[in-house]
């Protein structure tokens, strides 16, 4: 994906295979994308399309089976090194489940203190409490009320804000958000997305936004990559891809997005199940050749 600045994090033809022999699953097939400062890349696709595998490779939870991961242009080195510790600090994650991702036995202040002690040795003593307050204010929570509380005393939206504050505590350069709003109520989703976006702008973060909801992808991200069966089938500028989709799978996905302007009874609005199956079958095949639809908009040939 093109960007104005040099990329912070790049996946270069990364593949990931689980298992071996005939039962092996190729969860990611030759994935390439870059994250840039102050920009968001949305990876959209249905469950099982490989989007979380991409997130986990970026988090270095999985080692790629093939391909390279580049951080600021340099290939990632082995675990245990100084560069590795730097990478762990610089790339932070926000998880899908706001209920499971905080420890029920610890206060919110404790959750924020840990990354500060681990990644910010410059902050000591009383400054830690001050920094915790500043972090909570940043995510628009009242530190005096929230800091001494336990996770169960907070709502889902508040917990997700704590998760964002925890990620920010390490002073990251990249944030990987895997479906950060899919378990939240509709009325608080936008608040969390707006906050993520604001943080991205203010702190010049590169944001990898994993979602199945293409409408929020458009709302949040400058760039988009549509995944199906482990491949990125279409990518580029979010507006261009959504307004002028070229890949049959992207078209199928867009046609199925709930749209209050189109009633199911409208014969022009029908999504044919047999055509959908055919599109899925064709899209699952390996597609090598890449075509430029327009500047900053690419598609794999089916």
């Amino acid at each position: 994906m093109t960007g104005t600045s040099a990329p912070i994090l790049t996946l270069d033809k990364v593949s990931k295979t689980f298992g071996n022999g005939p039962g092996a699953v190729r969860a990611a097939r030759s994935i390439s994308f870059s994250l840039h400062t102050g920009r968001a890349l949305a990876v959209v696709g249905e469950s099982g399309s490989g989007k979380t595998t991409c997130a986990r490779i970026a988090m270095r939870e999985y080692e790629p089976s093939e391909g390279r991961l580049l951080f600021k242009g340099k290939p990632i080195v082995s675990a245990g090194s100084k560069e590795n510790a730097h990478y762990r600090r610089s790339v932070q994650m926000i998880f899908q489940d706001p209920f499971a991702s905080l420890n029920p036995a610890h206060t919110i202040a404790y959750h924020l203190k840990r990354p500060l002690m681990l990644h910010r040795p410059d902050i000591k003593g009383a400054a830690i409490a001050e920094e915790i307050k500043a972090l909570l204010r940043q995510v628009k929570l009242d530190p005096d009320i929230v800091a001494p509380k336990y996770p169960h005393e907070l709502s889902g939206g508040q917990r997700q804000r704590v998760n964002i504050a925890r990620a920010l505590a390490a002073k990251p350069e990249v944030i990987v958000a895997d479906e950060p709003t899919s378990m939240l109520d509709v009325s608080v989703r936008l608040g969390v997305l707006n906050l993520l976006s604001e943080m991205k702008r203010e702190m010049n973060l590169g944001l990898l936004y994993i979602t199945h909801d293409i409408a929020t992808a458009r709302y949040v991200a400058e760039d988009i990559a549509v995944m199906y069966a482990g491949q990125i089938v279409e990518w580029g500028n979010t507006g261009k891809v959504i307004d002028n989709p070229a890949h049959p799978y992207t078209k199928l996905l867009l046609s199925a997005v709930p749209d209050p302007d189109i009633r199911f009874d409208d014969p022009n609005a029908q999504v044919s199940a047999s055509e959908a199956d055919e599109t899925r079958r064709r899209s699952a095949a390996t597609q090598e050749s890449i075509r430029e639809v327009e500047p900053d908009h690419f598609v794999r040939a089916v």
Partner: protein
Amino acid sequence: MTAPLLSVKNLTIDYIGETNDFRAVDDVSFDVAPGEVFGLAGESGCGKSTIAFAISRLHRPPALIRKESAILLDGRNVLDLDHKGLADFRWREVAMVFQSAMNSLNPVLRIEQQFYDVLKTHKGISRAAARDRTAEMLRLVDISPDRMRDYPHQFSGGMRQRIVIAICLALDPRLIVMDEPTTALDVVVQREILQRINELRRKLGFAVLFITHDLGLMVQFCDRIGIMLAGKLVEQGTADTIYRTPEHDYTKKLWASFPSLHGGVLR
């Protein structure tokens, strides 16, 4: 409007607590006409699922339906049914599809057997007749009848959800209550299933009470919509009215919380 099929009147449900009671549903009234799709929208905890459970009489203590409430199906009060009446009423009159219904199939029984269980219990029909009916129902939801000897794990999530819907339809119910039936599924599969249900209700004439938090989807599918907030039905109207000219502030706010595919962006 013709006489309503389902008429919910002054429904009030409390969850009884040790010190104080929690009013989950507060004086809710609405009608569903035969063949109509009525939608209930609202956030988690607003009481929409509690209503769905009450209609099938599936609510359990500490949920308590207050005395002034009535749920009329064709004029008969569901709340007055005895054990026997209830057994006849469930599935035959009102069927229910839950959020993760694809997980409600028994993993160790063949699909055919699960249809047979329902058909034998309610209609007492023979294996051969049940097999014919199963084939017919599977065809309705675009699944090949050859697969009735398969086990649930051999089907995808969307197919399993369609099988559950087929089992629901096997007794020709007049109302299907669907509580977030497609929330766990992908958008394309969701669209395929709801489109199919829409065609089937035109053909077979059953009514649907459709519960979801996705307003966009609701407007596409429903004839009329009720918006719930903290146990109260704050607004109801045709899908078009709710979409184009919502009256209540909460409805307007709900709409504002959905980014549209062609609407404004943050950047």
